[in-house]
């Protein structure tokens, strides 16, 4: 169920949508709604990063709210800005998969939601950041990332935060952006936004909704096909085929660092547990004739899947991070799809849905 939203229309002048939205974000900072605003900027030509801005002018000048690149899943760095129960409020402009990752981190008690003003924004997809850098400024021909091609959530969840959503899907021909204020939004914030004099209008919201539904339908086919292909690639090969797919893994752990929902502050794979004694290694090598080093490749990936697949938001950052170009996204997305449907869990949808591993029902999952 979608909660009632107050839908406002932000007019866009000649300077275009990006400038209009940047101006809006700068205004929120100027008016003291937030103490700082996190948003994507272009640092040097072709390279996007996130900026935690204090100076509204910097936002007006540098913000790139629509650039189709994702340097990181900002859900996790934003969580870190408010992990220590600060005073004040941080605003952040986030893509749908970033909002959803942040919801998971809030539930994992790694971010304090009271100190956040989340401004979610529609996203129709991003391109590979390295290709973008090479092709810049002529980037319009670039293919979407694999994860984005099959993404079923191009709009931020309405139920995630009492915040603001910026809609633009289906509104390309309009000189306007949709600004939706969710019902639970701090009345102080809502009052400031309403002061800006945007008109209220339901028709743009309807148009956007049907455009999103159409996009999802299209992606749904691609999504199913993608999973089928990925399974076919394994060709029923069992554990050997998985070992082969991961054979190039050097154990650098970049995938874990890039993953917004790999939540442990200290990873067990970095600790003493895997600091084997020589005799332990020899014993294992003896049994199998030899062992790959650095080893525990399957153990690492399968453990990660067990720990975080329920919260996987299918952002694909793991794959982007892998120096060996291993197709991690298809493996993780497939597994996540299975584990999430088993426990009927939709990561990032709402702070109210309990994390599946923190709860249980007495009459479920039988026979074991």
């Amino acid at each position, binding site marked *: 169920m979608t909660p009632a939203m107050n839908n406002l229309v932000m007019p866009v002048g000649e300077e275009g949508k990006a400038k209009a939205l940047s101006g809006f974000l700068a205004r929120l900072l100027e008016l003291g709604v937030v103490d700082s605003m996190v948003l994507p900027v272009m640092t040097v030509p072709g390279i996007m990063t996130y900026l935690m801005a204090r100076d509204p002018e910097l936002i007006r000048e540098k913000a790139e709210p629509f650039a189709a690149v994702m340097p990181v899943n900002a859900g996790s760095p934003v969580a870190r800005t408010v992990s220590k129960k600060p005073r004040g409020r941080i605003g952040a402009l986030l893509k749908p998969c970033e909002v959803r990752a942040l919801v998971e981190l809030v539930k994992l008690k790694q971010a304090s939601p009271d100190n956040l003003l989340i401004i979610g924004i529609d996203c129709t997809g991003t391109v590979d950041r390295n290709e973008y850098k090479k092709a810049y400024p002529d980037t319009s021909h670039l293919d979407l990332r694999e994860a984005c091609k099959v993404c079923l959530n191009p709009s931020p969840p309405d139920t995630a935060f009492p915040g603001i959503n910026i809609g633009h899907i289906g509104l390309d021909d309009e000189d306007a952006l949709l600004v939706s204020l969710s019902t639970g939004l701090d009345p102080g914030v809502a009052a400031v936004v309403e002061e800006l004099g945007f008109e209220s209008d339901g028709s743009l919201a309807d148009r956007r909704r049907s455009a999103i539904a159409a996009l999802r339908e299209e992606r749904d086919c691609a999504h199913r096909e993608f999973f089928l292909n990925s*399974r076919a690639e394994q060709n029923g090969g069992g554990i050997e085929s998985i070992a082969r797919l991961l054979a190039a893994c050097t154990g650098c752990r970049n995938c874990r660092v890039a993953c917004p929902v790999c939540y442990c502050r200290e990873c067990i794979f970095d600790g003493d547990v895997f600091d084997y004694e020589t005799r332990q290694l020899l014993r294992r090598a003896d049994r199998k004739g030899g062992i790959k080093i650095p080893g525990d490749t399957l153990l690492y990936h399968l453990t990660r899947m*067990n720990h975080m697949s329920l919260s996987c938001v299918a952002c694909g950052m793991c794959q982007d991070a892998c120096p060996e170009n291993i197709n991690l996204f298809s493996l993780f997305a497939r597994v996540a799809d299975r584990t999430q449907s088993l426990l009927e869990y939709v990561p990032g949808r709402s702070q109210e849905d309990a994390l599946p591993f923190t709860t249980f029902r007495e009459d479920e*999952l039988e026979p074991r």
Partner: protein
Amino acid sequence: MESSVGFEPKIVAFLCNWCTYTGADLAGVSRIQYPSNVRPIRVMCSGSVDPMYILKALLDGADGVLIGGCHGGDCHYVNGNYKARRRIAVLREVLDELGIGSERVWFRFISASEGALFADTVKEMVDSLKSLGPNPTKAMWIT
């Protein structure tokens, strides 16, 4: 690779101190006959068995992993067994989705007084693993 003829599966068993471990002990003291394929590891609760340990055993060549916990409502730590049930169900999905298969992982509720049930479970598991054959990870060094 071990041949399946005369193949004796190795089972790593994580047994809850308060129920299944005592049940296994009871099977022993009562001189109930059961196959000696089990390598028991005593844990304080089935809820403390992270899937990582189950995976580690499987990847190191164990033919089966048995997790034994208290019956519903009897967990010494209130609901560790119910939480374990979720974790193991998720582990199964992971293994099945990747084509590894989850047949080698068994989770059973066996109380301290159910020595006979423990013995029967082990027999049943050994038979089932014999028909599955040796775990392919035994001979795989690229894990």
